[in-house]
């Protein structure tokens, strides 16, 4: 049963091949048995899952038939879940039981999804390896000595290991797409504003976007259809109808114009990965796509711009974790300053502290213009690069990451090396456009991904291309040994 995709589960549940309760029990057992190898879950909510599964079965018995009714998923542990610890993988929120549900959580629950728990991640979503969690690093099911990518590494590892068919993630600089690539999954970062951020604990507000991680584009379409939509509680959420993503899947690709940015194929890219990308391009050509080279000249400035804007916003967003109202508070504070210093000093991990300090510096009087304002200018340039490119092509394609998964600990002492792993993904966040990563082969037995980028609100096009590719290839069907 654990090998089924969401779409197959929907058919199985509809055909009464099994019940949601049976499926949930099977997966809970599997999580109990296998997750100790991966550490992908922070919290397993077995009781709640059983109750939700029973409710889903009851709804089905009463005549309901939603595609996600009884579908098991789990949430990245930055989505607030009422009555359940929502930790952001931080000591700071280890004791935080959210009093409310995130909109994404609420919407998926309303659609009938059964949540099995909360997934591990980089602390406060800051990282590309899921090594910075207070609850220990997540391991890649394809090689448990390797990282699964990050920050949604728990989501990726759990789905790749078939512990759950799909999960929610969030993507601020690549945190859905990069772990999807490193674990042979399909992951979608929607257009900024497509999915509500209400209840998704903020890392960098102007870049954060929730989205699905699953094995297939079809499953991503199913989940996104339920997650997306206007939310009056999020001022940055866009009031625009949600496309029928499932209907979009089957459009033929004939005439699709694909752009290959020359900047994505330069130094730093593992040549074997480049080969995998080109093989994917050939496949898409067979499906009717045309290909041309394009330029995204400002991409070279993306990492510095991102590592100013994201930490700047984070330094402010994380100020509320002060030990006063919720979360970690140091023992016996002597006075207010001591309370602040020790609660935050003891509560936050090294990478979070590093970004808070970088962001605080970038916003400080005298540096604001040189860093923050300049970074915003670069951001506008990157956006116009994309807008220009999309005059010529319908889709931009390239590698999701420069390398396959690396060994645990390999880059944790060199933050800049880890930051460079985001090079292909962060431009989509800076521009706000949607991006998708899909499985595209293996290098040294480790999966690699191809990233597709589309104009604003063209998630349907991304899912369409990925689905058509997945109809013609079987990379995405390969499972890691032992899972």
């Amino acid at each position: 049963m654990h090998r089924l995709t969401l779409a197959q589960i929907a058919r199985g549940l509809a055909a009464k091949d099994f019940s949601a309760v049976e499926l949930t029990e099977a997966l809970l057992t599997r999580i109990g048995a296998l997750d100790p190898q991966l550490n992908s879950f922070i919290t397993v909510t077995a009781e709640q899952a059983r109750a939700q599964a029973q409710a889903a079965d009851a709804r089905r018995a009463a005549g309901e038939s939603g595609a996600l009714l009884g579908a098991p998923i789990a949430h990245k542990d930055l989505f607030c879940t009422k009555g359940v610890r929502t930790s952001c993988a931080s000591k700071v929120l280890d004791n935080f039981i959210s009093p409310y549900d995130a909109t994404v959580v609420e919407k998926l629950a309303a659609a009938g999804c059964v949540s099995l728990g909360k997934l591990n991640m980089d602390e406060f979503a800051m990282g590309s390896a899921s090594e910075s969690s207070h609850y220990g690093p997540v391991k890649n099911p394809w090689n448990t000595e390797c990282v699964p990518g990050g920050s949604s590494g728990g989501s990726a590892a759990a789905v790749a290991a078939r512990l759950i068919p799909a999960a929610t993630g969030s993507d601020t600089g690549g945190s859905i797409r990069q772990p999807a690539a490193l674990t042979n999954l399909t992951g979608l970062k929607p257009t900024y504003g497509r999915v509500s951020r209400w209840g998704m604990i903020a890392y960098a507000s102007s870049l954060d976007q929730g989205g699905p991680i699953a094995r297939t584009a079809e499953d991503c379409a199913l989940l996104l259809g339920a997650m997306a939509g206007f939310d009056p509680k999020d001022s940055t959420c866009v009031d625009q109808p949600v496309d029928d993503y499932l209907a979009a899947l089957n459009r033929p690709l004939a005439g699709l114009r694909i752009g290959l940015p020359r900047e994505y194929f330069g130094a730093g890219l593992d040549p074997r990965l480049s080969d995998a990308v080109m093989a994917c391009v050939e496949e898409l050509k067979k499906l009717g796509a045309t290909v041309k080279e394009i330029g995204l000249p400002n991409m070279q400035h993306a990492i510095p711009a991102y590592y100013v804007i994201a930490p700047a916003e984070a330094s402010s967003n994380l100020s509320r974790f002060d030990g006063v109202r919720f979360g970690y508070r140091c023992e016996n504070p002597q006075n207010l300053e001591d309370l602040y210093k020790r609660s935050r000093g003891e509560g936050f991990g090294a990478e979070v502290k590093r970004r808070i300090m970088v962001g605080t510096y970038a916003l400080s009087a005298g540096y604001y213009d040189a860093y923050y304002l300049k970074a915003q200018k670069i951001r506008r340039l990157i956006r116009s690069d994309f807008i220009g490119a999309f005059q010529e092509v319908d889709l931009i394609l390239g590698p999701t990451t420069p390398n396959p998964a690396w060994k645990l600990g390999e880059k944790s002492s060199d933050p800049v090396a880890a930051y460079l792993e985001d090079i292909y993904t962060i431009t989509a966040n800076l521009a706000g456009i949607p991006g998708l990563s899909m499985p595209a082969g293996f290098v040294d037995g480790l999966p690699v991904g191809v990233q597709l980028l589309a104009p604003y609100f063209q998630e349907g096009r991304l899912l369409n291309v990925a689905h058509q590719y997945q109809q013609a290839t079987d990379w995405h069907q390969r499972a890691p040994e032992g899972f």
Partner: protein
Amino acid sequence: MQWETVIGLEIHAQLATRSKIFSGSATTFGAEPNTQASLIDLGMPGTLPVLNQEAVRMAVKFGLAIDAELGRSNVFARKNYFYPDLPKGYQTSQMDKPIVGKGHLDISLEDGTVKRIGITRAHLEEDAGKSLHEDFHGMTGIDLNRAGTPLLEIVSEPDIRSAKEAVAYVKAIHALVRYLGICDGNMAEGSLRCDCNVSVRPVGQEAFGTRAEIKNVNSFRFIERAINHEVQRQIELIEDGGKVVQETRLYDPNKDETRSMRSKEEANDYRYFPCPDLLPVVIEPDFLDEVRAGLPELPGEKRARFESQFGLSAYDASVLSASRELADYFEQVQTVCGDAKLAANWVMGELSSLLNKDNLEIDRSPVSAAQLGGLILRIKDNTISGKIAKMVFEALAAGEGASADAVIEAKGLKQVTDSGAIEVMLDEVLAANAAQVEQYRASDEAKRAKMFGFFVGQAMKASKGKANPGQVNELLKKKLEG
């Protein structure tokens, strides 16, 4: 050396919206601690702000009323600092692009002149909560009911030159926000708070002196005293060879002094940046037109109308238009009695002293506008004299009758205008004072003029003030001339 005072004021007006600026919580004053704090006000992880449109509308009203530049778009920014009653670790405010740009307000000074005070800007922001230091034995309690209450911070140019001008300006702002219905103006509850930036410079010098900011002065009286005290302190400091340092000071009304809170060096670097959770606010021309159409008559307009329509003096017009409630009261009295000058005299005279004596606001006046108007009508139609009218007014104030007519009737105060009755009464008075009558008739013109008043007094006394004074004069003269 002659010194000139330079003052700029920052006024925080709490906007009278029903809910908070970024959440749906109520803004009612005085609720049990933390009962009006939602997830958003508590700064719960994952929560996001949604701007209250009513707060925008109120700010725009203010902008239109001070003839300000209203930019097409304005931007919220985060002001970052740590404080226990600041739940998010930043205050959402406005920095580079405030909703209200440059405008001005005219104030009336005591000498009758009008001075124009520049207003640099006014911006929207959220209030913080309150730290409660009593009752917690070495700890601090936090009440977040006030957190997220919408404020309009109104920043003046350094155009103010004395404590009295400062008070006049604050009063004018106070009147304006109440006219506009955007702030209840209750200074005791902190609905209108004032930070005073004060510096001094030698008369004739163009450059400003170093300023000190006096935080949170919350009454007209304290504003005047705090500024006067601070000016004195700065002058003495400089004349003693010292230097004013840029700092934030606190006014202590009990000791009538200001004291240092923190210096410039200790000041926070607030690390302002545009709030990524809120979009720029775009003010559409249609919205502006709609707000403009709904503006009430403003103090300045009302003052001018009182002068032109009612022929009131500039002073009377400015006093009567100082608050919307007082102006409405006056106009109601005027409508009832049809005599603006009498109405003005009574409102500014008897009514004002009555209210002052009992420390009442006009909306709690024991004499209603209809009652006062009715009273003035009876003066005009000679039913009662001005003197009797004051008695009737006092009776109305004491609740001794529903209307002037009722009081006059019940107390039998109706003026006697029947000349026959007055003649009978005068005859009695003259008979009772026969000696004086003799003396009067023997006197010359000058002496007679003096003595005449005596007879009038006796006559009025005999009639218990009810005889029509004009008739008494006329008939008495006739009789004495004999």
